[in-house]
């Protein structure tokens, strides 16, 4: 596939297109063909919102225009979206970058006797609440699903001495800046993303179209 740097997506967990003006459905279909997967799409438009009037359980409700902590999307679902596609619809450039970090090095630290993946979390979702570890391989046998969202996930055990979010703070993020039609594809089962603080003058400029790609075979 020419549109998306598939090699980078597989190696680094993300890929970007400088300017994409085609249809989102076509992009998703091309991605599905390349990865040999069928996806269900769910589209929405994101604009910065203040804390008031939003549910506390959402990041906007908790952080408003402030920076968003690192998280994966849809952590409250047993099977979160496989990929996220973000496309800038706003006119002009947004200085508040989307931040990407790969937590794999935290899990690979075998020197630690008790790793962060021995921590058990309770994912709040009403009747659909459930237990999980950060890197889960028992929801879909043989596949790793990483998830983290401090707003909906509560650590239940004493577990590792290290705080996961502190360890995330030690990683150097990749900063992605936005201009019209720029498109970013994120592996949501692997990478965390966050957002820098949005200044008042940027509130009207920053407008992102977000498309969730759910694996169809696990979502029936």
């Amino acid at each position, binding site marked *: 596939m020419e549109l998306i740097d598939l090699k980078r997506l597989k190696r680094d967990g993300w890929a970007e297109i400088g300017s994409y003006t085609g249809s989102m459905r076509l992009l998703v279909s091309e991605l599905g063909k390349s990865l040999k997967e069928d996806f269900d799409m769910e589209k929405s438009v994101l604009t910065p919102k203040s804390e008031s009037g939003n549910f506390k359980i959402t990041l906007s409700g908790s952080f408003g225009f402030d920076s968003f902590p690192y998280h994966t999307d849809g952590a409250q679902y047993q099977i979160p979206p496989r990929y996220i596609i973000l496309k800038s619809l706003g006119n002009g450039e947004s200085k508040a970058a989307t931040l990407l970090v790969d937590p794999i090095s935290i899990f690979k630290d075998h020197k630690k006797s008790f790793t962060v993946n021995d921590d058990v979390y309770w994912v709040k979702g009403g009747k659909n*609440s459930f237990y999980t570890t950060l890197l889960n391989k028992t929801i879909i046998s043989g596949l790793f699903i990483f998830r983290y969202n401090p707003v909906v996930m509560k650590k239940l*055990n004493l577990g590792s001495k290290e705080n996961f979010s502190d360890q995330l703070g030690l990683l150097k993020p990749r900063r992605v800046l936005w201009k019209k039609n720029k498109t970013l594809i994120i592996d949501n089962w692997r990478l965390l993303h966050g957002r820098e603080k949005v200044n008042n003058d940027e509130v009207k400029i920053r407008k992102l179209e977000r498309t969730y790609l759910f694996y169809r075979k696990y979502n029936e």
Partner: protein
Amino acid sequence: MNKNQAFNYNSLFTKAKLYIDRAFSVNRESELFPFWISLSLEFLARSTLAKISPTLLADTSTNNAENLLYALDYESIQNPKSINISSVFDRLTKVDIKFTISEKNLCNKIVNERNTELHSGMKGYEDFPVNLWLKDFYRICKILLDSQGLKLKDFLGISEAAAADVMIKEDVGKIKKDVMDRIQACKRKFLKLGKGQKEKLQKESAYKIVSVGKEFKMIKCPSCKSEAPLYFQVISESQPRLDGESISQEKRCLPTELHCYACGLDIKKYVELEAIELGSQFTIQNTLDPVEYHGIDVEELAAERMEYMDE
């Protein structure tokens, strides 16, 4: 999305992991150590059944199928009821894993002590302290995790898994030495007997084997080389199929004990059989009589045919 959280494999396994972590976070001498372990064991056992099918956990004793439908994601109910833990252990002996009656008995004992602690005025684990069964607990965890495609470290964490592994291996080594010593002792005793005595014992053993009433296959005794019964439990049976004029069926079996009536060698635990490499599962082929299998009343059938010929 899964609605059947109560019987969901991931939730049950992760809950077992949470409880084992709670066990590790208290002092090993604390009364809470075996308590948390017993809870963890319960959820690990339940998760093993759920991994095969959540329906294996549904309580169907109340004559309605709502728990079963819930397990299959068809129905949403407030308080889904699952089978009790002793039934869970019982079912684990019937699915295709190395969980035998001796593991079932030990698991029941661990859980019963917890119930003594929780539901009686007595103290649990008083006569059955954790140091007596911790290595067996780890060994059972390994059996259950193997069947889930997981490793001890996925459940216990890296360092606890390494320690557990050492305990299991040491235990297997000890068991092997103990069984080998018994084999040698029985061999010496048998060799001291006269030829006539040996033959008499070998002859008598055939009657004794049958009178036990358990399923067995004959093998050479590892001690005296006489024919000895290896008793087994049937794990699963294939669908009967027509093979010429008869019906054949395969049974997958797990050895459970060995008793040689000639030299007196007695091996009663699966782990002991496994330690001397007699623990492998095997398949036996059964030939079934079509008349018996289909429950055909031959006389009635003959009478019917006679009637037909009369017309």
